[in-house]
């Protein structure tokens, strides 16, 4: 039990003791004993190297604790020995499924310190690519959801249709996974010829994909019985644990940085909707993500229609030196709120960068949500919380 003492707070320890006392008589009669199951670091359900220590009583979880850090790559420290333009290659790899979205808040923070703003066309293209990386990210989540619950077909549809989005990102930036396209003051290049028409066609395909997933998975009775009422995270608990993104909106909190934060991006120029769900269970989280993918395709469509002409790069010096100061910028990334706190001392590179990644906070609610559930529900709840290992460990 030394592990229990180390990792559990007082409240959880008391709850554990209480539950043990309640089961004590039964345990004495049946002579059962608990079992500690290490799920991970190498496990098919953790898409990476997350470890979950679960204390089981039969199939029921007495307590569970995620243990992270197996994929720590030290990006905050590495950023200190890079120049500002070089940092984007690092932060690309934090949430590897929606890479472009990781670059944007860092660049915005640097721009804020330098007091430059990207021209409107660059802002538009940034927003389009941001939403495309959201679609690429969340569409894979929607497919993966089936795999976590044993339906292996949706993931093939997801990979098929994500490919179109990746091709678009590659067409515009040259990189499928790690575009490294965002520059302080604008973008590296303009959009290639024919890209807009192709993007519109792909957005139509993605909406069909969303309908397919809704039919195949969300309408399935087994899926519903596995997710409805499972892993309920109430509104106040979600706020206390610092959840963000779709996880928070699924708990009924109407909060979206794209709408609520005034950023030099194009979201406020178009008409779109923030989806929320009052239930806070696994189904709500999945449903909100599905709706957001649909909404993102509509956002992209509208942005493509209203894309202004003009330069894609503001006037910035060749060698970028960021003036002394501190800046915090966060955006609504595919996984939730992602922010960079950049401290500059007027040098070529940042003095200190603190990265606030969404998954780290989202996964921190797991011990609370996993108490008393069955082993299969561990996977459902973790899948619906949706984390990327790179985003947890950075």
């Amino acid at each position, binding site marked *: 039990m030394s592990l229990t003492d180390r990792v559990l707070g007082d409240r959880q320890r008391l709850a554990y003791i209480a539950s043990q006392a309640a089961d004590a008589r039964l345990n004495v009669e049946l002579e059962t004993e608990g079992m500690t199951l290490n799920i991970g670091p190498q496990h098919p*359900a953790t898409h990476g190297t997350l470890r979950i220590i679960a204390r089981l009583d039969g199939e029921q979880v007495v307590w569970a604790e995620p243990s992270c850090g197996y994929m720590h790559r030290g990006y905050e420290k590495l950023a200190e020995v890079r120049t500002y333009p070089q940092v984007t290659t690092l932060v690309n790899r934090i949430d590897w499924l929606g890479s472009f979205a990781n670059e944007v808040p860092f660049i915005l923070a640097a721009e804020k310190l330098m007091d430059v703003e990207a021209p409107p066309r660059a802002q538009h293209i940034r927003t389009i690519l941001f939403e495309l990386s959201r679609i690429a990210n969340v569409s894979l989540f929607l497919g993966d959801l089936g795999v976590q*619950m044993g*339906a292996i077909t949706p993931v093939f*549809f997801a990979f098929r249709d994500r490919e179109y989005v990746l091709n678009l990102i590659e067409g515009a930036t040259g990189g499928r996974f790690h575009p490294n396209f965002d520059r302080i003051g604008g973008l590296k290049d303009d959009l290639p010829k024919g890209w807009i028409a192709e993007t519109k066609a792909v957005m139509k395909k993605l909406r069909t994909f969303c309908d397919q997933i809704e039919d195949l998975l969300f309408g399935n009775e*087994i899926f519903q*019985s596995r997710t409805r009422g499972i892993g309920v995270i109430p509104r106040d608990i979600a706020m206390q644990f610092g959840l963000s993104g779709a996880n928070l909106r699924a708990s009924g909190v109407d909060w979206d940085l794209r709408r609520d934060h005034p950023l030099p991006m194009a979201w406020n120029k178009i008409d779109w909707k923030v989806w929320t769900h009052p239930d806070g269970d696994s189904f709500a989280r999945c449903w909100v993500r599905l709706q957001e993918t649909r909404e993102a395709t509509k956002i992209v469509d509208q942005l493509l229609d209203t894309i202004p002409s003009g330069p894609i790069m503001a006037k910035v010096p060749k060698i970028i030196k960021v003036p002394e100061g501190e800046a915090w910028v966060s955006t609504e990334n595919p996984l939730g709120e992602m922010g960079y706190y950049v401290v500059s001392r007027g040098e070529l590179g940042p003095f200190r960068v603190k990265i606030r990644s969404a998954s780290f906070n989202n996964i921190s609610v797991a011990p609370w949500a996993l108490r008393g559930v069955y*082993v299969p529900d561990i*996977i459902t709840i973790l899948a619906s919380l949706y984390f990327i290992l790179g985003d947890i460990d950075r």
Partner: protein
Amino acid sequence: MMSMFAVEVPYWGQSLLRVLGGIVAVLLPAGTIVYVFLFKMMSFMQSRLGPMEAGPYGSLQLVAEVGKWLQKEDIIPERADARIFKMAPIVVLVSTFLLVAVVPFGPDAWFTNFEVGIFYALAVSSLSVLGILMAGWASANKYSLLGGLRAAGQLIAYELPMVLAVIGVVIQAGTMNLQQIVVAQNSGSIFGFDGLGNPYIFTQFVGFVVFMIAIQAELTQAPFDMPIAESELVSGYMTEYSGFRFLIFFIGEFATAGVFSLLTSVLFLGGWGVPFAWFGWTDVDSVANWMNVVGPVIMITKMMLIAFIIMWVRFSSPRFREDQLQRFAWKVLIPVSLGNIALTSIFKVVM
């Protein structure tokens, strides 16, 4: 069966021929064809091509994979109970082979014409639980243990609705002999109309559905695949197996799917036969001899159909949770199949 041969074959020769026949009739169709057909079918459902390299359109994929697995190292975990660990896959496979012994493929093409055939089939099919439990316990792995225990709970729970669904057929046919069940279906008539015979899928439709759900669970295919739930338990009771021991489990999985499909087609689809009224036959003795050749083909066609349904469900459903599965077995399937038995008995007495 032996009447087919001109010379009298001694008993040991008959036994040898039957064993060889069993291997050819089970391993080839129930292994290769089911495997390749299902993998191609599954691939098309998932909008991909599937195996394409080994042989024309990947038809020799199973051979290639057997070759791959035979090359792998045979690992036995240090803390495993080695003897039981080695025995477990064989127990699972043997239960499949025992099952096929009573399945008739034609008027004379059977391995054993057993009077209580279906009783025997259901009894030996539950032997596989033993093998799975042995594998789960002997592996000295927590995932294996959880998988093995889940499998035991699940297979015992779904054995019951399966037996109860079969009872309806037995009442209607009035026999437990699988050969006579086939004859009863093909020589029967539905309310005087004998153009289709009387395949029990029509008159025992409830039993058919319950039986299909139960074999889905018995085969541990999705949505009842908790024992091997790869996203939770890595691979359940198979986690620690590698090389040819894993291969045996793997062949066992597909061969059992094939054999249960055979059993379903015997019980509900009329087995090897065509409606006897088409050719003016009256009973099994008047059936033409060429049915011994055509029968197995008809049988395998029906088996593929059933295997297709099993895999179709498998590839499109998420899995249940353990408690939901038990609730479904005890609160839905068993009452429904009991009601089916009551109705069947009433019709049998009244009509």
